[in-house]
Each structure stands twice: as structure tokens, then as C-alpha cells.
């Protein structure tokens, strides 16, 4: 993963930045509106949607999570489709009444990669969730995405989400970060 400043040749054009921002906002809107089937069309067939576990460790003991560790999400397209099927069964009791959610996407950075059709995109997502009578939850994720242009259209190919909580502070993670 690249850290710090990037060299000039990785700086994306304003046009590309704008296109990526609009892509991420549209994705957020689909999530807010529970338009999950539409969301799936924004993903590549080989999507990897990953939110690894989080532990608090001493600096000397820090280690990067791997895909072979436990994870909130470690999904390919088949796994994501199963999640969507759950919400379509009509017996998904905890989603009826529906969750009110707002996905706020900020701190978007777009970097070019060696592949002219792939862009590395950093963003911060803050999800406000309001459920039942008055329960409010806030979840915050640092996202590193790989966005790929497929037949002229941007699609999400990889997402890694680092949750900003050690203990996940809510009973469920029924929203996508």
C-alpha cells in the first residue's frame, strides 16, 4: 500500500476524480435506498469485498490482517448475492421496519496505477444508522478501493475496509461500509 505523497505521474485528472466521486456517491445512494441489486451491478464479477477483524495490539506486535484470518466481510460475488437474497426473502424480520441509513463518503483520493483502466481510491465512509424507535449507531471505515473501467464504465473490483473501532460497538452490521 502506498503511503504519503504521490509522484506527479500518479495524479489523476480532475475529470477522473469527478467521475470516481460520482461513482462513490451513487453507490452510497443505492445503499441508503436499499437498492442492493443496483449496487451489485456496480461491482466487477471478481469483486473482493473485505473488512478484516480488528485487534488492539502493542506497536511492537502490530500485524496486518490477512484474508485467511477472521473478517466481518470476506466476500466474493457469490457471497454478496447471498446477503442480498436474505433481504429479499420477506422473512428478514430485523429489516422490517426498515433501517434508516446515511452513507457519508469523504476524503476521496484517486491514484493512477500501472494499469490504465484501474485506479486506487482512498475514502472515508461514515455510516449513520437509525433503527427501531430511536437507536442510533455510527460506523466509520477507512476504505481502500480498486476501481476498474470495464467497457467504459467504472466498477468496484476490490474494497478493503478498516473499521475505526476495536470492539464493534453495535449488535449488527446490516449496512455496507
Amino acid at each position, binding site marked *: 500500500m502506498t503511503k504519503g505523497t504521490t509522484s506527479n505521474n500518479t495524479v489523476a485528472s480532475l475529470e477522473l476524480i469527478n467521475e470516481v466521486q460520482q461513482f462513490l456517491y451513487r453507490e452510497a445512494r443505492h445503499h441508503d435506498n436499499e437498492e442492493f441489486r443496483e449496487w451489485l451491478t456496480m461491482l466487477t464479477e471478481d469483486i473482493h469485498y473485505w473488512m478484516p477483524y480488528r*485487534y488492539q495490539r502493542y506497536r511492537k*506486535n502490530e500485524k496486518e490482517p490477512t484474508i485467511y484470518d477472521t*473478517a466481518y466481510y470476506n*466476500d466474493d460475488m457469490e457471497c454478496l448475492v447471498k446477503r442480498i437474497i436474505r433481504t429479499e426473502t420477506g422473512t428478514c424480520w430485523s429489516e422490517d421496519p426498515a433501517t434508516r441509513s446515511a452513507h457519508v463518503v469523504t476524503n476521496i483520493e484517486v491514484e493512477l496505477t500501472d494499469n490504465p483502466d484501474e485506479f486506487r481510491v482512498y475514502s472515508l465512509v461514515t455510516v449513520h444508522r437509525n433503527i427501531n424507535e430511536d437507536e442510533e449507531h455510527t460506523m466509520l471505515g477507512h476504505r481502500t478501493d480498486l476501481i476498474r473501467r470495464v467497457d467504459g464504465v467504472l466498477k468496484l473490483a476490490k474494497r478493503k475496509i478498516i473499521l475505526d473501532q476495536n470492539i464493534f460497538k453495535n449488535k*449488527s452490521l446490516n449496512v455496507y461500509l
Partner: protein
Amino acid sequence: MSNRKLESDYSRYMDLKEGWVDRRIFWEREIYEQELEQIFAKAWQFIAHDSMMPNTNDFYTTYMGEDGVIAARQKDGSVKVFLNSCTHRGNKICYADDGNTRNFTCNYHGWAFGTDGELKGLSNEHVYDEGDIDKSQWGLQQARVDSYKGLIFATFDEEAPSLEEFLGDFRWYLDIMLDQDDGGTEFIGGGIKNYINANWKFGVENFVGDAYHALWTHDSGFKAMNNNEGFPPADPTGSYHASMNGHGWEFGTEGLADIAILGQPKVLEYYEKMRPKMAERLGEMRSKIFGSLASVSLFPNCSFLPGIQTFRVWLPRGPHKFEMRMWTIVNKNMPDEIKQAINIGCMQTFNPAGVLEMDDGENWEGNTSVNKGVVTRKGKLHYGCGINRRIEHEELPGIVYASQFNDANQRQFYERWADLMNAKSWDQVPTRYTPRYAGKKTV
């Protein structure tokens, strides 16, 4: 000034012949404080799996009740468990979940403790005069530690029976999970932790014997994992509840349903190949129990799902909140590909984002929060399903009831809870079943 009269005899919070439990045990702070004293300061509790700390000086921090503890691997391979609180002013000496270290040094004044819990040194030790402190007397309070087939347990009660006695005949069932093949088990790396605003007992009782909820609560999740097909209709035949001193296993004998929930065909194939070997090792009956629709709790607060392979503890955080810690358990001898398929399937179904788990927390929070209402709280809850279905079974040890759709294990769990809440000493804690394996190995 409180007009809430609490019972001094905890068995009065239930009538298990009539089949009800008093709602106050899920709400009252005084009862919760008694649980910390009578259950969490006394009973053996799951601390960690051996595989979480393979090397000398590896450590893992957790809680016994609300007492923070550190488990650490010693040079001789044993594990010590001691309080995570400096003996000087009390600060936590370790703020990490796990890691490897030679010392735990308190941030406040720099008192340093070894991974054996002994006080090794003080910062600026010269400010103490000779005779001010005998370091050998100011180590961290140690718990008793023992393990069963990879699971490390601890208790702070010197009078508690041995772990083997505490587990009793439940070992016969535990072997189904822990002793399927020569290699034993391990946990997949890392773990998931989350808070649920519910009484801790709702998590434990759900796993100890609530197959019933699965059919309704998890219809959507099961369909998601099973090509849009729901659970087959509840079949009361060939399935059981078995309870031993509050530990309970509810199970079918079809061998399939919980593995199928993983949604990973290659895992089903793996177990089909392995089953004859499992039968050789554990007998036909136990080989069929594994993988069936089933759930398990170890008294007081540890649970798992054999086949789905989620393994967890329910750590109390007050009467209306608990922390759930979850892992994936696999056999060491499994090929990496199978371990990963189980990890993926287990995590997709059972963690806060899991397609089954997501619906549980919501229910347990509702079960708990309603008792804010003083009128609501005075009511009873029905635990009478299958109350007359007790049977004797040739092969199955423990208190056995026919059909897994049953409240039997939950009733036995609350009976054990009341036994411990009332007991002034372990002599007063009855064994409510007839042990068959006392002093004997179970494989």
C-alpha cells in the same frame, strides 16, 4: 426506598415443573452483582484456545465476569492466568488484546510484571527504602488454570471442583467437536468482538437449547445460504436435548444441516469422507451428531455451533450489555483450502454482519430492554416446551429429552444458575444428572 422485593432463594425465580422463569433475572442490577460473585468468581470459564498463544510469552487478555485477566504462555508450555491490574494503584497493566512480551509494565509508575504474573521490578526503585516492599508478595493474583483438549479454562475459586469434574460427562459430547481426529483443533487467526445491549444469559440460553428459534428467526439467513430453500419442517424424531450441570447440547442426528448452512459444498464433501473415520473414533452415534442442526453452551458463558464452527464467549458488561467474542474453530489436520472455506462460511453466517447472526442480537436486545417497564418486569416467561419428554437413553449421557425442539436444556441451565447463586460452598451445589464417565476417559 426501593419497593422491589428481591428473592433471597434464587430457585424462586423459576418453577421448572410449571415451566416458567422470572423476568427480573434479566434486568435487576442486584441479581447481576450476585452473578459476578456466585458464578463468575467461582465457575470455570473458557479463557482461550491453545492455538491463540503457541509461543513462550504469547498472551491474550480477556475477562472473567468483569475482572480483566491476562493469559500468558510460560517457558514450560503451561499457561498462567492472572488479574490485569497493577498491585500498586490498580491500573490495567496490559491494554492490548494479544501479543508477545517479556513484561507487562504499568503505565502509571512503571511497575513491571513478568509473563508469570510476578512483580519483577519497579522504576526508580531507589526511592524505596530497604524493607518498604517485598516484591515476592506483590505479584498479580493468579487463577487456577486447566485445559481440556485445546480449550484453556480458569477459575478464581480454590474450592471449585477440578475442571474434569466441572465438565463431567459433557466431555463425551465435547469430544465430538474437539477430538474428531488425531490433530485436535485450532482457531483461525484474529477474532471478532461486538457489544450487544442484552443480558448475557440470552446468548447462552439461545445456544444451550434453542433450535426452535432457528426455524423462524433465521428463515431469511438459511434461505440465503441454501439456494433460497428454507428449513425443512421441524422433525421431532431423532433429535435430543442433553444437559449436564448446566452445560447443554441440542442436536439432531441427520449429520448435515449445520454444515450445509456454511454454503460451502467442498466442506460437506470433506466431512462425508471423514465421517467413517469419525465413527471409528467416536462411535456411530457421535459421528452422526456432528454436523446436524445443533447448538451448544458450556456453563456459564461459552458456546459453539458444531458444523458451522463458530466458537464464542458471552462476557457480561452489566445486566443489560455483553461483549461477544467470536472465533472460527477448525481441525488442525484439515487441508488449508477446507479451513478457509469454513472460515468464509462461518464468518458469513455468524458474526455481527453474518446473515444468521444479524437477526439474533436484535431479538436479545428486545428481550432485555422491555423489562424497563415495571409492569412488564413482574411477568413470567414461558419455558415449558417439551416439559414431559424426558427419556433415558442407552448411549446418551446426561439429562436427556426427546426432540431438539424443546426448552429442556434452558430449564436445566437456569436450574444450575439457581444452584450456584444459592450455594455458600461447592458442597451445596448438587449434581443433577447421573454421571457415567466420572474418572473415565470419553474417547
